[in-house]
């Protein structure tokens, strides 16, 4: 897969605090979610990519340019949507966005034309001549997105794009991000604490913890569990069902009230038959039977669980889980 950023052994320090610790990661093209708890190094990574922060050691190339010597070329091809509100005082929205385009190197007339376009696209067409200071929080988020897009960047850096938005605004913003990244061929790195947002917009995630990569891969791969376990939901709790499935040679991974996660040998049809048979014997009524997969929250929590163990760098999340629990391998993750 094409790479948009290649980071090798990057260390960034703020005084004695190490924000990025010998970070090595290859960021593929597409929409990438950057996850991590507070202080994990997400924002520092974005700022280092932009050249705001000088690394203590290591190298990185972004879109084929070195961050050490070609910062301006990188920033010309990147659009940043910062987390906090930012605008240039005293300007209307269209002037602000056009000015952002001019700063990136667009000719004035092109920048103005393009500003009208992206403001329409971002849903601010009606409000384009209003002063940005008078905008609501949701509109300010949109205009930040518009100014990031105006010069046609190859890579978008979106830091908490849904900050402060109401549910409708959040939906709209995620849809904008998703459309740009999936239909128009732009790459984006979305840094967010909101896992559903990342899940909705991104194909892949990078989980950072203490300045190192704790997990990376396609979300669909990371969600997979080894052995095709299934989730079974009964109408009501039934202790006999547990007995029956154990007698049938089915591995019980977890049981919570009327919900069970089972590892059943065989193909889909055989699994269904086995579960139905066990339920019949136990006198239970099956309400739901589906392939089990982990949520992004589980992936994230597993990745950041052991804060002291740094031996998982660049390894799939499944391996992390295995090494921590010493249980039979039940989770897989493939890149």
């Amino acid at each position, binding site marked *: 897969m094409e790479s948009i950023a290649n980071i090798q052994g990057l260390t960034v320090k*703020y005084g004695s605090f190490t924000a990025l610790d010998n970070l090595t990661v290859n960021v593929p093209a597409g929409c990438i979610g950057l996850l991590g708890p507070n202080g994990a190094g997400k924002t520092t990574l974005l700022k280092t990519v932009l050249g705001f922060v000088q690394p203590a050691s290591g190298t990185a190339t972004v879109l084929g340019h070195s961050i050490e010597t070609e910062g301006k070329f990188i*920033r*010309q091809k990147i659009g940043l949507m910062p987390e906090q509100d930012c605008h240039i005082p005293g300007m209307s929205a269209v002037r602000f966005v056009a*000015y952002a385009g001019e700063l990136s190197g667009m*000719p004035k007339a*092109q920048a103005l034309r393009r500003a009208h376009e992206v403001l329409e696209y971002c849903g601010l*067409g009606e409000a384009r001549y209003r002063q940005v200071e008078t905008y609501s929080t949701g509109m300010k988020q949109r205009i930040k997105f518009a100014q990031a897009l105006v010069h*046609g960047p190859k890579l978008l850096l979106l830091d908490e794009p849904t900050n402060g938005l109401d549910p409708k605004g959040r939906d709209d913003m995620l849809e904008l991000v998703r*459309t*740009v990244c999936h239909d128009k061929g732009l790459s984006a790195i979305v840094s967010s604490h909101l896992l559903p947002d990342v899940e909705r917009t991104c194909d892949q995630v990078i989980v950072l913890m203490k300045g190192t990569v704790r997990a990376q891969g396609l979300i669909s791969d990371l969600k997979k569990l080894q052995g095709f376990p299934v989730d079974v939901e009964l109408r009501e709790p039934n202790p006999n069902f547990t007995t029956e499935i154990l007698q049938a040679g089915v591995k019980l991974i977890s049981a919570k009230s009327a919900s069970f996660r089972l590892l059943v040998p065989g193909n889909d049809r055989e699994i269904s038959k086995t579960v139905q048979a066990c339920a019949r014997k136990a006198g239970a009524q099956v309400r739901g039977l589906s392939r089990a997969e982990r949520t992004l929250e589980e992936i994230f929590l597993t990745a950041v669980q052991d804060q002291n163990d740094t031996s998982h760098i660049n390894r799939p999340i499944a391996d992390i889980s295995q090494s921590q629990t010493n249980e039979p391998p039940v989770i897989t993750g493939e890149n």
Partner: protein
Amino acid sequence: MPNSPIADLSYRNYDGPMSPPHTRWWPIAKMSMRLAIKSKGFWIWATLSSYAYLIYMVIFYFTDSTGTASGRSNPYFTMLKWHDTFVASFTLSQLLLLIVALLIGAGSIANDNRSNALLVYLSRPVSKLDYIFGKWLGIAIPIAAIVFVPMLTYYGYCAMSYAKYGFFSQDHWIIVKIFLIPICAGIVHASLSIGISSMFNQGRIAGATYAAVYFIGYFFTVLVGQLYIGVTGIGPNQFLKNLFYCSPDGLQVGLAKVIAGTNGSEAFTGFTRHIVPRPDPWFIILLLIVVILFGFGVAWNRIRPVEIVSR
């Protein structure tokens, strides 16, 4: 179809022309100037700042038309040193120039600090130096222009009316000098403005600080001037002469005198009794360099795209 004048609302990539990521300071300077000239206050105070030239022209007009017998020279004009009138007018306009500088310069960086605009600038192919220089130029050019325009008007009026009174013969280079004096005024105000503005998050506080610095410097200059002309008996000396020009106001007047090559004289009368002579050129140039370095140095240190919190 969506209800919009633009039919195709889907996102399209931009593949049009892009300038190389150099000289990004020019769009910043242009925008700063555009925002400055949008303000009514700028035009009002800029116009008012030319009052001294206007008074000179009115005095000259009436003196010339009423006080001269046919065919004889007017004694008022024969005693005038023409380049002194430029310096005197420039000196009188200082306070109004300060107001213009406060209007366009005090908030130039402070307001960007408040609204996080630095993230917008510095996430583009704009370096810190591009940003500072662009802001500096965006203040220096309008101030130089509002000093230059009345000077040039005054020059044109005098050139057309008073050539026979030595307007050209007294100083052949006066046209060059009236280019240089406004540039110096622009440099001084722009340097101080960006330095002070970058220290604050609010334009008003930056403006108040700049005004305070200016007036404290002005009173200091007045005090030193009194010492120089002998009020306290210390009397004129080289040190006091140079010290007199160590304020934002004094620096500009000193530069104007050095450029014009005159010690100056009192406005309208031409008397020189209470005038501190021009400073040593090397001293005033050194002082100008210090002010420029102060402005750029403070701004350079204060402007950061990220807050670095020590841990």
